[in-house]
């Protein structure tokens, strides 16, 4: 079954049509990278998929369950209980967006305890195991401001994983990091890919996208220009726009 299905979604900000009829399906265990120039609609697509933005038209569904419906007047509406869908996915932000007043541990455990109403001891022990796995052992009582950017981003990945999502979205997870720190974050994402975590990653790290993805999507001008296996797209693309973009990147 597809974890995420997006059919013919459109999104405009005023007169600016940012997404023009995008369709995309993500299978369980699949890792999809989205690349493309800034302003091409990658982040907007991710924000629509994670329900931070509403689409103007089209269908988004998780685990076969539609998020939107058409009412009697033919108008596109979002279902009332969106939190049901939010339990299915997680999102890792470019700027981490950790809660600065919470310790690392509380950042991770607060939502599972307060939102999912899970048992505290169980959540804490799972969180500790995840921290260890991400190389953050012993950092649980520190505050985000005491960590490097790379560590903060790894904590935010743990925070998303602690909600046990079916699919994890990444919005340029390394763009706010020093080049020296991107490696440690990419390593963690690679590790998740090896464990068959379903992921959609918007990134500018081409080598990473090539190494980690099952499928790469190239987006520009609000449309999916091309998609395919990483080796096909990166090495054998026939598409002029894709070629041009990749060449500029390799310079």
């Amino acid at each position, binding site marked *: 079954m597809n974890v995420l299905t997006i059919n013919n979604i459109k999104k405009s900000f005023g007169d600016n049509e940012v997404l023009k009829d995008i369709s995309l399906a993500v299978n369980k265990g699949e890792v999809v990278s989205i690349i493309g120039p800034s302003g091409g609609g990658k982040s907007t697509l991710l924000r629509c998929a994670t329900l931070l933005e509403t689409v103007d038209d089209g269908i988004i569904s998780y685990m076969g369950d539609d998020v939107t419906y058409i009412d009697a007047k033919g108008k596109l509406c979002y279902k009332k209980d969106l939190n049901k869908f939010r339990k299915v996915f997680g999102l890792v932000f470019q700027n981490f*967006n950790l*809660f*600065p*007043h919470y310790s690392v541990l509380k950042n991770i455990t*607060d939502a599972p305890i307060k*939102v999912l109403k899970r048992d505290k001891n169980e959540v804490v022990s799972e969180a500790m195991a995840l921290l260890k796995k991400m190389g953050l052992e012993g950092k649980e009582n520190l505050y*985000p401001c005491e960590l490097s950017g790379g560590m903060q981003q790894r904590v935010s990945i743990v*925070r998303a994983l602690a909600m046990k999502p079916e699919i994890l979205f990444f919005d340029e997870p390394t763009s706010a990091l020093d080049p020296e720190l991107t490696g440690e974050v990419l390593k963690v994402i690679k590790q998740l890919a090896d464990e068959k975590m379903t992921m959609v990653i918007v990134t500018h790290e081409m080598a990473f996208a090539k190494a980690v993805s099952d499928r790469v999507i190239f987006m520009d001008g609000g449309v999916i220009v091309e998609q395919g296996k990483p080796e096909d797209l990166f090495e054998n693309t026939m598409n002029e726009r894709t070629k041009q973009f990749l060449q500029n990147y390799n310079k």
Partner: protein
Amino acid sequence: MIIQMSQGLGKTCAIFFLTLIFSLPLGIIIALLRMSKNKIVSKITQFIVSVLRGTPLMLQLLAVTYGPYYIFGVSVSRNKLIPVVVAFAINYAAYFSEIYRGGIESISIGQHEAATILGYSKFQTFVRIILPQVIRRILPSITNEIVTLVKDTSIAFTVSYQEMFTIGKQIANSQTSFTPFLVAGVFYYIFNAIVGFVMGRVEKSMSYYQQ
């Protein structure tokens, strides 16, 4: 004289604490109404706040105390503490609301988005994620208002509420002496020194993280 005036100090403290207890939460509610997406609610709130901030507290106090008599013919209550606290709480809530609003708007949208993605309800997001950060940021401005409140309690003399300053004024009149005012000044200064100390400790206790 000092004994008489310190007896009034209890009532000064009553105005002070009751005003804070009511105005601090009320300020949050007003701030949220002011930020409401409903334009009518927001505009009405904005107008009320502008009136409360734009007219003297003394006038508002007189209106709350004697207004019911002139408008509805209700006799003026003998216990003046109620109208004093009502007037003070509403007035201070208006000031606090603008401080809260500034604080709430200064929190990055990313904090709201992160909380939304994690499934926090709007109420949980506000209480658990936004408000604690807001309080930390606005504490210095709140302290400023609290210091002003200590001194503003003396305005209660206009409705003859027997707080410290009112008693001091009465003694000063009967003895034709300026000394009670000096004593009152010392009392207010000490009161505010304590406020400053306590708020300093509160600020310190919240500065365990960087903003």
